[in-house]
């Protein structure tokens, strides 16, 4: 796997023709009417709620297979070292040990074509896999690890981006020419002219620290590969589909020979999107021992294996006209990719785009440099890089407004795009309630009477943002398929491949199907997450669940309904297009007394002459070649209080207005808002992996600080429905659109509490905030004495 560093890649896209209203779509758009719905829009508790809270839900670690062994991984303790010798003989001799494997035992297999399963000649980060054992029990496996003897020769390591990019810096893995992994520049529209003709240019720097995703469910893989033609893997994931596609070729199997079962997934936050070394290792151990193997991460190991956000540094430049029009952004990001080059750069691109397309810009330039270091390979966290980018931009806009004597909310409103706008990178916004969102939170929070008039060390901040619902082209394809089986007793089962990591998507699918068939979602079942059983679905990321899988569910339900209308139309003697499915009944549109019960209809359809068993099938694929059809928009206002003695920040209240297209299930939507406001607050104010030369100093749930329910602010929810023409019943997304904006609003509020001081560090931990408080106090004192 020789690597080469990439040279600068620069693209230039001109300003799109904004005169055409619908530049990229052919064919009909969906109906925009707010049709009279029965099930959708009601507060539907999660179908699996009782099971979850009573502890009956099964997670991967609950799986016990006959003869299962315990697998454990020996990890590097050095950030960079040569492996001089590796002796596993003592471990192999330990009674109870069934296999010990290292790089030399596994042939050509690597992880996603990018990194080795086991380090062979050198280790390049702390936690890198070196060897693994499978034993009868955990204690024996632990002992066996201790018996593996390794001789290292420590090599110079680069632990931060500044050092990594220095001339003559040690190379992270010796395979590249330098430590710069990628350097991409994208220009949209007219960047230079916008800056040249600007009346104001404001610039700030912002740095975000290393985080951990803190999943409720640790990393775990249970594998049965005891027979050569069948590989079964139980693991929490956002995509069983992509895992299947990665593993089948790696182990010389067909897709159908690989079964991925994801059961329940205890949190993902963009961190469970691909196959990781521990999955491969569990498979290899199972193949070697011909027995099922379970590998699960222990407390601090969890911090080593998690691939979350690394250090990210931004430089933001913004061009404005005198009247407050924002004309251009120039954003530079430096991203610590860790020891294995990653696609973090791509996500930096997404982050820059989605936080700037809310403005009708003339120009946008984004540079993203992804740097290799001897840190843990980095990937994503909740809100990805979009959260920190939004926190930087919104702080920049809120502080700029103060400087040019404008109200930030006016400035945002003035610059907010509207429906029908075409973005610089070509996206066309078929529905957009951004201005309505801004107006809503402005009114709800009584902004006009409160902004700038709060007591000292209290602050209000406003943020806006947007999120793509689905991103065709980012994965192999974007098709989701769903099956709807109508049982003999009238109970409907939905089969879907999309994982529910807590976001409630399975209930959403049930609600959509229930709406079409006119039944009660509480009577339904959802079968999910077993590639042997459920139809194709790329997975739960990029906010594609509701729009892609939701449309597939709608189509599958329509198919089932169509099959049911055959009997009903004959029996009720009405045209099948005049039939209404609602409230557990089927009746004629104009003669509601001509009706029959849903269950009765199902029974008679099966037991009638045709003998039809009803099974609906549906799939959905975005009408675009590439990209997204629908975007959510949102505005939020946060109110915070800073303790000037200790620097502690308390978020008092957050007003949220989110244009999600349609609220399929308002209860779940509010749950999404709660979770994302929480997580944004957590990342903006608390979360930080503290490191010393690559070693994590706080790898535990006690010391990696996240807030608890006590810290939760009051939330004021406003779900704005713009009924998108593409989404199922007009729905777009509420999966990540909230967290991004909460981040911006909270960061801006802290800055406002300190009189507009830009706080360029994330998390805004008490000791950092206190430094800013002292600075502001010194400035004030100097100002007073000068006066």
């Amino acid at each position, binding site marked *: 796997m020789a690597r080469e560093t990439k040279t600068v890649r620069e693209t230039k896209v001109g300003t799109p023709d904004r005169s055409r209203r619908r530049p990229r779509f052919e064919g009909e758009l969906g109906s925009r009417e707010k049709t009279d719905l029965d099930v959708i829009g009601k507060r539907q508790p999660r179908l699996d709620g009782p099971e979850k809270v009573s502890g009956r839900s099964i997670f991967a670690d609950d799986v016990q297979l006959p003869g299962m062994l315990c697998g454990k991984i020996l990890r590097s*303790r050095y950030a960079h070292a040569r492996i001089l010798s590796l002796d596993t003989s003592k471990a192999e001799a330990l009674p109870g040990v069934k296999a010990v494997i290292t790089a030399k035992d596994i042939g050509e297999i690597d992880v996603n074509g990018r990194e080795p399963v086991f380090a062979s000649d050198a280790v390049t980060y702390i936690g890198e896999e070196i060897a693994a054992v499978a034993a009868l029990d955990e204690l024996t496996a632990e002992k066996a690890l201790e018996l593996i003897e390794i001789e290292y020769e420590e090599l110079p390591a680069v632990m931060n981006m500044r050092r990594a990019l220095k001339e003559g810096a040690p190379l992270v893995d010796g395979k590249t020419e330098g430590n710069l992994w990628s350097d991409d520049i994208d220009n949209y529209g007219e960047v230079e002219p916008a800056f040249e003709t600007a009346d104001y240019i404001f610039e700030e720097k912002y740095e975000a620290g290393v985080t951990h995703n803190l999943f409720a469910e640790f990393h775990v893989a249970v594998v049965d590969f005891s027979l050569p033609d069948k590989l079964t893997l139980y693991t929490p994931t956002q995509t069983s589909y992509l895992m299947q596609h990665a593993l089948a070729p790696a182990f010389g199997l067909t897709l159908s020979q690989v079964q991925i079962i994801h059961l329940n997934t205890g949190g993902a936050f963009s961190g469970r999107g691909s196959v990781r070394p521990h999955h491969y290792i569990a498979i290899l151990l199972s193949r070697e021992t011909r027995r099922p193997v379970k590998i699960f991460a222990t407390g601090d190991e969890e911090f080593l294996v998690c691939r979350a956000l690394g250090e990210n540094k931004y430089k933001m430049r913004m061009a404005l006209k005198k009247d407050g029009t924002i004309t251009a952004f120039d954003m530079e990001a430096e991203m610590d990719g860790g020891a294995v080059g990653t696609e973090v750069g791509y996500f930096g691109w997404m982050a820059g785009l989605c936080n700037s397309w809310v403005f009708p810009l003339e120009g946008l330039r984004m540079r993203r440099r992804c740097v290799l270091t001897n840190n843990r390979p980095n990937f994503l966290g909740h809100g990805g890089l979009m959260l920190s980018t939004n926190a930087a931009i919104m702080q920049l806009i809120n502080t700029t407004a103060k400087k040019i004597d404008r109200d930030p909310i006016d400035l945002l409103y003035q610059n907010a795009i509207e429906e029908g706008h075409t973005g610089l990178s070509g996206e066309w916004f078929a529905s957009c309630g951004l201005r309505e969102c801004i107006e809503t939170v402005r009114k709800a929070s009584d902004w006009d009477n409160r902004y700038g008039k709060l007591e000292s060390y209290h602050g209000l901040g406003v943020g806006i943002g947007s999120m793509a619902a689905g991103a065709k082209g980012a994965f192999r394809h974007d098709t989701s398929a769903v099956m709807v089986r109508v049982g003999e007793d009238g109970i409907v089962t939905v089969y879907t491949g999309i994982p529910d990591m807590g976001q409630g998507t399975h209930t959403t699918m049930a609600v959509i199907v229930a709406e079409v068939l006119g039944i009660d979602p509480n009577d339904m079942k959802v079968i999910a997450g077993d590639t042997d059983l459920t139809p194709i679905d790329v997975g739960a990321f990029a906010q594609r669940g509701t729009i892609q899988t939701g449309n597939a569910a709608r189509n599958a339900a329509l198919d089932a309904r169509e099959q049911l209308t055959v009997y009903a139309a004959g029996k009720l003697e009405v045209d099948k297009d005049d039939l209404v499915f609602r409230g557990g009944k089927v009746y004629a549109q104009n003669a509601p007394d001509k009706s029959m019960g849903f269950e009765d209809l199902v029974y008679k359809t099966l037991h009638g002459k045709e003998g039809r068993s009803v099974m609906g099938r549906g799939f959905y694929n975005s009408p675009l070649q590439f990209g997204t059809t629908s975007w959510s928009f949102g505005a939020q206002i946060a109110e915070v209080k800073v303790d000037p003695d200790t620097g502690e920040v308390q978020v008092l209240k957050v007003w949220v207005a989110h244009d999600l297209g349609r609220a399929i299930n308002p209860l779940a939507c509010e749950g999404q808002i709660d979770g994302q406001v929480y997580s944004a607050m957590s990342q903006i104010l608390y979360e930080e992996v503290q490191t010393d030369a690559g070693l994590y*100093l706080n790898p535990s749930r006690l010391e990696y600080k996240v807030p608890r329910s006590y810290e939760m602010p009051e939330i004021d929810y406003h779900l704005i429905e713009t009924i998108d023409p593409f989404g199922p019943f007009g729905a777009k997304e509420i999966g990540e659109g909230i967290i991004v904006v909460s981040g911006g609003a909270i960061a801006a509020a802290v800055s406002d509490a300190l009189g507009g001081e830009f706080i360029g560090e994330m998390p805004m931990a008490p*000791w950092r905030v206190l430094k800013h408080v002292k600075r502001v106090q010194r400035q004030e004192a100097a100002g007073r004495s000068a006066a």
Partner: protein
Amino acid sequence: MLLPDHSYVKAESLEECLKTLRETGEKAKVIAGGTDVIFNMRLKLFQPEVAVSIRGLKDLLQVEELDDGSVRIGAACRLADLIDHPLAGGRYPAFRQSLEAVASTHIRNMGTLGGNICLETRCWYTNNSDQWREGLQGCYKTDSELCHVIKSSTKCHAINNSDTPPALIALGATLTLQKEGAKREVPIAEFYRADGVDFSVLGPGEIVTHVTIPPVSDRQVFIKITPRKGMDFSLGAVAARCDGEGEQISNIIIVLGSLVTAPVVLDKPAQVVLEAGLTDDAIEKAADLVRDELGEVSNLYGRSIYKRQIAIVLVKRALTQLREQ
């Protein structure tokens, strides 16, 4: 993280317990509520051959008022039970505040007062698993002659991070220590040593059996600052008490906790407010002196500069609250 192999002895009586402790010597470890000791065993910081449980020892479970009005509390009493006990939390407000400040409801339901007083000192190095620690060399507390936290140090700087000791020191409490055949009383103010490894005067086979708090006035306070509410060790804590009326006070004791290896009794700041009274000026001046008395504050959890600032804020807040009482 599995527990190391060990045997478990649940003593039936205090005598039997003390005998077992003498016989097993260094190989034994006392377990009370177990909320900390079990955790440290999982981390392989402690690998005792014998775990001697003192939970349920009747002698250590009583709370009683003595003839002189003092209250004697058994060391095995659970923190949760003491909070609302009329003779414990009910009588001493600062003690109550410190009990309530410990960890979470679950931990207070298990953790004992003796365990809180004898809590192992903490630092980021030893509070991680043995596998994690292997990435670095050992330290004074494990098996080497060095400290990772203060690199130049000749001793261990792990902090005393427990919440009741500052309050108990401010209240003038005394500990009863017992080993087989011997019993002694030690003021809790003299119990701790400025060394993270050998952090108390407890001798081999000796345990804390009782805590005795004398009758004191109600002018007392305990405050702790944590990164988040409901479950966290202190970034810094303060306890203070005094006699007298309004700004005019006598017998003041101010104690800082969770900043260094042992709770720190602040003499000079106390002297300032004793002489000048609890005026704004004096409080300000007293707080300014905290810096000098604290000695070396390491960055054990949280930056040292920040912790110094916290200490000053704590003292100011405590004195201001005392004035209002």
